[in-house]
C-alpha cells in the first residue's frame, strides 16, 4: 500500500508539473503565433476591385450604371477581377459580349425569384445578340413606353389587362416578353403619373 501511495504521489506531482509547464510557459505563446498568422492573412493581395475605384477614370459609365437596373451589383460582377487593371491600366479586362454572360443571370430558371427579369433565351430574338438592343448601364431600349396611369391598386396584375389588350390597354408584344410575369413589369417600365 505504501508503495502505491508513493507511486500515486509522484505521478500526481509529475502531472502537475507537466500541466503548469505546458500551459503557463509554452501555452502563453499561442496568441503570438495567432497574431502572426492573422497579419500574414490580412496582407494578402486582392484580385477584385470596387466600383468607386472605377469611377476615377470611367466617370460617365459609372454615373449611367448607378441609375441602371444593374446598380445592386458591382462593375466586377460582369467585368471580373479588375485590381490588376487598377494597378496597371495597360492590362485590359476582357468581358464576354456574346450574350452568354447575360444569359447566366437572365435565362429563365424555376428557382429564381419571380420578380427577377428572366427570358427563355431560345425564344427571345435568337437571331440577335443581347447588346444589339440592351445596354448594361442603361435602363433598356431607349424608348420604352412609360406607364401613363397611376399604379394605385394595380401592382402585380398588369397582364390581366395588357396580355389580351383589354379596355384599350396596349397589348404586350409576345416576342419581347416570353415567359414574363406581372411582377417583372416594373423592373423596366417606369410610371409617368404619380
Amino acid at each position, binding site marked *: 500500500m505504501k*508503495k*502505491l501511495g508513493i*507511486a500515486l504521489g509522484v*505521478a500526481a506531482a509529475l502531472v502537475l508539473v507537466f500541466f503548469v509547464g*505546458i*500551459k503557463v510557459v*509554452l*501555452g502563453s*505563446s*499561442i496568441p503570438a*503565433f495567432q497574431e502572426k498568422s492573422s497579419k500574414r492573412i490580412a496582407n494578402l493581395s486582392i484580385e477584385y476591385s470596387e466600383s468607386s475605384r472605377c469611377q476615377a477614370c470611367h466617370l460617365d459609365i459609372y454615373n449611367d450604371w448607378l441609375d441602371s437596373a444593374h446598380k445592386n451589383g458591382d462593375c466586377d460582377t460582369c467585368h471580373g477581377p479588375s485590381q490588376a487593371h487598377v494597378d496597371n491600366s495597360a492590362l485590359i479586362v476582357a468581358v464576354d459580349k456574346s450574350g452568354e454572360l447575360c444569359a447566366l443571370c437572365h435565362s429563365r430558371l424555376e428557382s429564381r425569384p419571380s420578380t427577377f427579369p428572366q427570358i427563355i433565351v431560345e425564344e427571345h430574338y435568337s437571331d440577335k445578340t443581347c447588346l444589339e438592343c440592351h445596354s448594361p448601364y442603361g435602363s433598356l431600349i431607349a424608348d420604352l413606353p412609360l406607364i401613363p396611369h397611376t399604379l394605385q391598386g394595380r401592382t402585380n396584375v398588369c397582364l390581366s389587362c395588357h396580355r389580351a389588350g383589354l379596355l384599350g390597354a396596349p397589348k404586350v408584344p409576345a416576342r419581347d416578353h416570353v415567359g414574363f410575369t406581372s411582377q417583372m413589369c416594373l423592373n423596366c417600365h417606369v410610371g409617368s403619373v404619380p
Partner: protein
Amino acid sequence: MANKQMGFRPSAFLVWVAVLLALAALGGAAILYGFWQGHESVYNASRWMPWGILISTYVFFAVSASGMCLISSLGHVFRIERFEPLGRRAVFFAMISLVAGFWALAGDLERPWRLAIWAVVTPGFSSAIWWMGVLYGLYLVVLIVEFFYLSRAEMVRRSPASSNPSATASLDAARQRLKRYKSFAWYAGIGGFALAIFAPGTLGAVFGVVRAADLWHGPLMPVYFVVSALVSGTALLTLAIVLTYRLGRKEMGSVKGLVQSLGKLLLAFLAVFLVFTAWRILSTGNAADFLLGRLGGNFWVFEIFMGILVPMVILLIPKTRTMLGIGLASFMVMVGMFLARYDFVVAGQLTSAGREGQAAGLGLMPSLTEMLVVLGSFALFAALYLIGNRFLPLSEHTEAESHR
C-alpha cells in the same frame, strides 16, 4: 538454421522477416505518395468523409495495445497468479501494436512532422486529439520502461548465479537486483495500467465530442472504447499465444491453463461488449439509418455475428473450448473488431450534419494506397513480433518455473 551443405539457404525466419519488412516499406512508400499527391487524390477521402480506413486501423491497434496492457496488469500489477506468465509478451505486444498504429496514423496526417513541434509549443488543451496523442505517447514510453525492467528481471532470473545455491554472495546480489528491477517494473506497470484506461478513454472522446456526428456524440464513447480495449486486447493476446506455440511447434503444456483463463475472460468481456454495442447504436437518433443502411450488412455479419456471437458460442461450449477453438474465436473477434472500427469511423461521418445529400454518392471501398498502408502496418507488427520473439526474452516458461 541455414543448411551449409546445400549452399546458402536462408532460414524461414529470415525469409519471413524480409518479406514482412518489405511489405512494411511498401506501406511507407504509400504514405509518402500520399504526402506528395495529397490525401484526397490517392485515398478514398473527400471533404465530406475525410477519415477512412487509416484512422480505423489506428484505433484498432491503439485500442488493442491498451487492452493487452490491461490484461497483463492483472498478472504483474494486481498479482493474480494465473495471469502472471503473461508479463513480458503482453507488454511487448502492446508496444509493437502501438507502433503499428502510429504507422497507420502517420498516413492520415497531411503534415505529421509538424505534430511533434506544435503539439508542444501551441498545445490545444480543448482538443481530444491532443490529449489522446499525449497520453498514447506517454503510454508508449511507460511500456518501454516497463518492458526494459521486466526483461532485466528475467535476465537476472535466468542467469547462472541465481540458480546456483552455493555461490551465496553473487546470489544475494542477484536477488537485490531482481527486487529492484521488479519494483521499477511494478511502478511502470501501475502507470501503464492507468494510462491504458485513460488513453482509450480520450480516444473515445475524440469521437464523442463531435456534436455534428449523431452516431458518435455522447458521453458513452470513452467507456465504450475502454470496453473495446478489454475485448480486443484479450483476443489479440490469446491469438498471439496460440499462434506462437502452434506455429513454433512448441509444447503448450503449462500455457494451456492460461489460455483457458483468457478464453473465459474473453467470453465475459464479449457479453459486456454486446450490451455496450446495443446501447451505443440504440441511443442515437438515426439508428435505423445505420442498421439498415449501406454499412448495415457489414455490421450484422462481421461485427455482431462473426465478431461477437459465434466466438461467444465457441467459448461457451466446453467441447469447442480447445486451444484451436479459443484461437479461432480470438481470430474472429479480431476480424470483427477491425471491420467494426471501419464501420464506426465511416458511418459516423456519413450521417453527420453538413453532409446531407452527399452521403449517398460517397464510395465506401478504401483505395489501393490506403490498403497498402494498412497492409504495411500489419506487416510491421508481424515483423517486429518475429524479431522480438527471436531476440528478446518473451517466453512464459521460465517465469512459471521460477515460481516452483
